[in-house]
């Protein structure tokens, strides 16, 4: 339907290629296409690594596996990273289901982490550890919620653009942390570490420092799935996301739902900040979120906002990340190499959606014979 605008008399019957929407597709075919795209991505990654490092492709893959599952420590670290990324993705998902593009996850995590650190410094040693942890939890969740509510309230009241607003809030959080570091740490090390944050460490479970965070996120995954799919709130979120007019029509208070959902989204991000600072690093600097606030957007989208699928998509991204990091260390390549790998795999995963949604037809021979 495109080439006919030229105005010249073309003695051609139909464009060579036409693209049309598919009606539907069996579940296993879709799964096969997606699995195939991951496979192709891995092959391309292997070839590129081969080209850059001279290593043979099979050993490239084994290096990647090694980076993730090489020894027990690496495996724990992999699961910890998976949990943290998944956690942020879970936090963002309610907002996304509402079509509220919260790209301020990074800032919400940071502000939660900052609140935790502030409590640790201000109250550490003065009150018992268990009550300190409780205060840390409450203040980090509150701080995250406030960071979510501010753009939501502006959106609900004055229809401001939430994407820009949440993005800007990231920088505010980042600079607040920088300010905090300047004030607390006189040594100029740009980080406030375990020495200063010596109280309020979360307990370890079974002697594993990562396990508590992993358990919390696992529980959160199940809870979030139930919240989104079976609760009244989850239903309201879906209706508001699909059509605000319909929501108004059935008497849903759209403003209330927007603010409530963003409070939840921000609060959960704050919780992740609490887990990162109190549960693992016991330090704070503007990089503690490590870009997860942005990567999580991708995790959530790729999983079509389904919490259980997000386990798979975040694993995929963490696996590529850690695997490529291992390759970079082993061959002494620039660490950006891992970003290239991740980029390739994401390209293929997103690209395959085209083949799931559309069908390509080539011009039939019959049309040519009719000439």
């Amino acid at each position, binding site marked *: 339907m495109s080439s*006919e605008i030229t*105005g010249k008399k073309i003695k051609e019957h139909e464009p060579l290629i036409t693209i049309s929407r598919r009606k539907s597709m069996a579940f296993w075919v879709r799964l096969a296409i997606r699995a195939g795209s991951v496979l192709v991505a891995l092959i391309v990654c292997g070839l590129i690594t081969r080209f850059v490092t001279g290593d043979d492709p099979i050993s490239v893959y084994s290096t990647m596996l090694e980076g993730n599952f090489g020894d027990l420590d690496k495996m724990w670290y992999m699961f910890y990273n998976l949990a943290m990324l998944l956690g942020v993705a879970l936090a963002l998902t309610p907002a996304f289901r509402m079509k509220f593009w919260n790209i301020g996850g990074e800032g919400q995590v940071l502000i939660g982490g900052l609140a935790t650190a502030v409590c640790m410094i201000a109250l550490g040693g003065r009150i018992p550890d268990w009550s300190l942890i409780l205060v840390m939890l409450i203040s980090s969740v509150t701080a995250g919620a406030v960071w979510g509510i501010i753009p939501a309230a502006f959106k609900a009241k004055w229809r401001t653009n939430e994407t820009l607003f949440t993005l800007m809030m990231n920088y505010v959080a980042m600079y607040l942390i920088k300010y905090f570091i300047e004030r607390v740490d006189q040594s100029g090390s740009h980080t406030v570490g375990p020495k200063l944050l010596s109280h309020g460490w979360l307990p370890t479970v079974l002697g594993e420092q990562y396990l508590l965070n992993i358990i919390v996120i696992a529980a959160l995954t199940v809870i979030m799935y139930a919240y989104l799919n*079976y*609760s009244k709130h989850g239903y309201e979120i*879906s*209706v508001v996301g699909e*059509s605000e007019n319909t929501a108004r029509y059935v*008497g849903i208070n759209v403003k209330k739902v927007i603010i409530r959902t963003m409070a939840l989204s921000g609060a959960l991000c704050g919780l992740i900040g609490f887990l990162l600072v109190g549960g693992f690093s016991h330090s704070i600097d503007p990089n503690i979120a490590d870009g997860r606030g942005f990567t999580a957007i991708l995790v959530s989208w790729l999983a079509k906002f389904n919490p259980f699928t997000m386990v798979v998509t975040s694993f995929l991204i963490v696996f590529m990340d850690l695997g490529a990091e291992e390759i970079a260390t082993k061959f002494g390549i620039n660490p950006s190499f891992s970003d290239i790998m991740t980029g390739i795999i994401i390209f293929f995963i997103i690209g395959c959606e085209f083949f799931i949604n559309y069908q390509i037809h080539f011009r039939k021979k*019959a049309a040519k014979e009719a000439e």
Partner: protein
Amino acid sequence: MSETTPLALELKHVTKVFGNIVANDDVEMELRRGEVLAILGENGSGKTTLMNMISGIYHPDSGEIYIDGKHVTIASPKDAFSYGIGMVHQHFKLVDVFSATENIILGIHEDKFNLNKSAEKIAEIAARYGFEMDPNKKIYEMSVSEKQTVEILKVLYRGADILILDEPTAVLTPQETEKLFRVIRRMRDDGKSIMIITHKLHEVMAISDRVAVLRKGRHIATVDTASTTQNELTEMMVGERVSLNIDRAKIEETPDRLNVSGLSLVNFEGIRILDDISFTAKSGEILGIAGVAGSGQRELLEIIAGLQTPTSGSIEYHDPSNNKTVDLRSKTPLQIRDLGVRLSFVPEDRLGMGLVGNMDIIDNMMLRSYRKGKTVFVDRQPPKALAEKIIDSLKVVTPSAKTAVRKLSGGNVQKVLVGREIAAAPTVLMAAYPVRGLDINSSYMIYKLLNEQKENGVAVIFVGEDLDVLLELCDRILVICGGRVTGIVDGRTAKKEEIGLMMTKAKGGETHVE
């Protein structure tokens, strides 16, 4: 008109496929010189696709087009013009700030650019066919029917002698339609061939010489209008016998339900959308609302439903069982429900307001009832039962209750929506354009449902566009024009022309408020 009249256009074995859908299947059609051929068919029967192939927008997958007996390839709208084919689309393609003349000559390469000369030529064409037109008037100052005139003149100016009109009467009042028909007859007498797409049967009978009926992409038959009847055409169009009767019962006791008085709405741009609207809706009665599209119908219903706040006026709901009256003005839909008022509303925008397109039928059933129950979780059992009941009783064609409603056809979407609204056992039921875009069978099912509600004592408010239907269905008809009530007539005795006049009575309905 005889068999020997030369053919202007001939289609042979024309087929067009989009993905899995066969839009046109081996269509054969002939258009004679100097005739009006009506193309009749339901929505989705392939009328527009076929016309788009003739006017060069699409290209047939197979089959041939002949003009004056010669095989042609129409690869673009420009090609179509060079063969003298001009199409007037349903949606106008005009530049608002340009005058009629400027719009008409836009894109034509003439030897010399001379606006005055062009204007003269346009005036001459207009005079020949009896158009009323000021060539220097700007488009934004024009009414819908004037804009349509510009579109028709545009193709005539380019020398078209095969004209394709896509649903030209959909936006016109009866008077304007009559005017258009007079023009079409003069064009025909001048030797032009005209194809007119429509699904209104009485218009087919009034204007066409022959009728070509399409059904599901196939050409069923072409018949002489003089030797056929509306019933016969319907049967060809639908593929089965359908009864075109609306049973209008007369209910004896009709107590007042809803008293609207002095309702006005000024929007945020300061434009008066509604101006002092007053009427009463009664139990056991269908109150029709007639008016040109955009006369304030949507706003009126949305105010009653609690979705908009009026600038002034009152809405009182009366309960005849206990003689209590409650004020509905400026209440939210939830507050209205909490007052015990069962108000159902089938909005104009079905998938954008009444339903959620991406949700399945069960979740759409739940829209009205999801708050029930004390837990934080929704109970999907009752809506599931309701969905299955509606699918069964209204014969909704769907793979299952778990199918997203946007995947259903227009008629089935509407059945889901109307079914849900009626299931709430309303005392007031408002429906805006409930049969727009629906096939004949679904339309008559909706009329039947509305009538059943009326017989159950519901006060039904029906906003419609087809005056013939309004006159057959409604007990009383409220006519609005430019946000003002221009009359309330009895549906059993009123004449179509009378309503048509009221629809255009108050000129320049949009008045600015100082």
